[in-house]
């Protein structure tokens, strides 16, 4: 038997989030798995039908702890020590990346981040194998976990959210660990956003180094506007100050999976593609026909964006009129 402790995250409505549903699929895909979902705070009613063996609740995440997660890390460490799972799973979110790593090093477990495949059949019986993209997605690496427990985080979209149901038991776990790390969040500043959220947009129009400056982003914004989409950018464009970093798509920016991802003047470095490769269709406009973006795109125009884009925009306007 392989015991899995799966740390849940909630969506904006307090329900079990997408990353967790995907992780449940991954956990249930393991051979002879016994899966326990851990959730901080009162569990939503829907957990009683999750396709897992049990649900454990721990103390809620203090809103004042916003993004530091000291208490939840301590609670999870206590839970792992008392229940001794083989695997601890997180979605690869901001929460999972920080808490997963902290938990692994606190309890001396192996840590395998950003996995796209996981199995417990590879190698010697009782060991776990994982696959993850490395070198910004240019290569895939398969690892064998030499010692259990292991903490893994799963890349968003690598597993489908499951639809099955079950009848898990729901129990609280009370930890007496108290964290008092002296980090204080004094303020949270929301950056104003206009229009559709980048991560939720059905169409993303992204610009890169090839645009040559900040001005062309207004053309991209016009196009996004007509298509009801959002504007993205490569890291190069953000670092150059042409557009705010909140628009950055890629390995270290946002991950988007729209129906259409229109990449203008983006060379398609693997670090960028890591943030958009799950788009339904990538459309590339780039004057360098040899650039990597054309290896990833479904449709493309080799040409100068200054000449291609205005007629593209005008035609889209007509089609949408």
């Amino acid at each position, binding site marked *: 038997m392989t015991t899995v402790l799966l740390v849940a995250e909630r969506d904006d409505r307090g329900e079990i989030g997408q990353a967790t549903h995907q992780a449940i699929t991954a956990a249930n895909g393991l051979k002879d798995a016994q899966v326990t979902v851990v959730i901080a705070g009162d569990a939503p009613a829907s957990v009683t039908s999750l396709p897992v063996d049990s649900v454990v609740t721990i103390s809620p995440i203090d809103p004042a702890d916003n*993004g*530091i997660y000291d208490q939840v890390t301590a609670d999870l460490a206590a839970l792992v020590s008392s229940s001794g799972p083989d695997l601890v799973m997180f979605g690869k979110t901001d929460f999972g990346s*920080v808490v997963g*790593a902290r938990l*692994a*090093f*606190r309890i001396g*477990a*192996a*840590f395998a981040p*950003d996995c796209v495949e996981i199995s417990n059949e*590879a190698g010697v019986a009782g060991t776990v*194998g994982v696959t993850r*993209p490395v*070198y*910004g997605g*240019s*290569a*895939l*690496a*398969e690892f064998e976990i*030499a*010692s259990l427990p*292991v903490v893994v985080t799963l890349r968003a979209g690598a597993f489908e959210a499951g639809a099955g149901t079950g009848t898990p038991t729901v129990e609280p776990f009370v930890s007496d660990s108290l964290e008092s790390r*002296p*980090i*204080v969040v*004094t303020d*949270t*500043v*929301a*950056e104003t956003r206009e229009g559709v959220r980048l991560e939720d947009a059905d169409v993303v129009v992204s610009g890169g180094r090839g645009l040559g400056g900040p001005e062309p982003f207004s053309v991209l914004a016009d196009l996004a506007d007509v*298509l009801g989409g959002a504007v993205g950018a490569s890291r190069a464009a953000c670092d150059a100050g042409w557009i705010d*970093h909140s628009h950055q798509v890629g*390995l*270290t920016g946002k991950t988007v999976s729209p*129906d*259409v991802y229109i990449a203008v003047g983006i060379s*398609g*470095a*693997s670090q960028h593609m890591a943030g958009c490769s799950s788009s*339904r*269709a990538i*459309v*590339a406009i780039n004057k360098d026909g040899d650039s*990597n973006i054309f*290896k*990833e*795109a479904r*449709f*493309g125009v*080799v*040409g*100068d964006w200054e*000449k*291609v884009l*205005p007629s593209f925009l005008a*035609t*889209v306007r007509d*089609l949408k009129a």
Partner: protein
Amino acid sequence: MGFVQRYGERVRRLVGNVIGRYSNTDRCGTANFIICSVRWCSEAVQKKRFLVLEIGKLELTVRIVVLAKQVPDPETPPSQFKVDESTNSVIPPTGVPPVVNGFDLNAVEAALKLRDAGADVEITLLSVGTGFVMDAMKKPLAMGADRLVLVDEPELDKLDSAATVRVLAAAIEKDGPFDLILGGRQASDWDQAHVTIGLAEVLDLPLVSLVQKLEMNGDTVQLQRVIPDGYQVITAPIPSVLTITNEIGEPRYPNLRGIMQASRKQPEIFSLADIGLSTDDLAPKVQLRRLYVPESNRQVELIEGDDEADAGRKLALRLREEKLI
């Protein structure tokens, strides 16, 4: 609050700090004076004047260690990215030298910004590995960092992250204490993004990830941490561990003076034995079994027209035909 409560811990740490410097470098001219103060520390806390003088003297230098990793140049075109599947390693492209991981240079930049803002900082680069290329590793020195410390032994470039953290922690204990430990948010080779986080756990220090702004404020640091659609303003104590993200700003270009100074500096090299470790301490928890380049079978449909404008028009029509827009 009493004097001892306010300054006792700070003095203890600062005194330790200078002793740490003294044990590793010979340029701490006040060392005798400070060692003296350690011996007399318990009495000294009662001699307020004496201590105030010391604090005034000692508070000047903030010791920062920046974790830096040598990586293959991530700007290598994908067409030149090749893997030797028999050794599970990346074949370095000919003529493209390795670089210091870009996010680590962001961390160097963060430390230099503190200096720009008037803080007296000493910036130490710390790296674990082997086969270091000095032209690459000295770039942070040319940008303005002060010291380069390398833990250099064969096979140290193949450690898993748990072992890497162990080595970094031992090197920091040996070379420290430090006021701030900075790391880039992730390395562009293995993209693991957790060595710095793990180090905070192992050293039992507070951690703030994804820092985009950093300012000294007395005994604390004021930070901005990136969150989705905004940022948090955070006060963190000293010492703390911080991961720095590219929003901090592009790493500065070294100027000629910096390059000249860097060329005269030699790295301080530790062996595993120097930091109290042996290879037995570094058994991997995670072992690489296979490294390969995935096949891409996507075929692009290139839209052509009478001219570029016509191609743009046809592209829009084609996307509509596919019901994509």
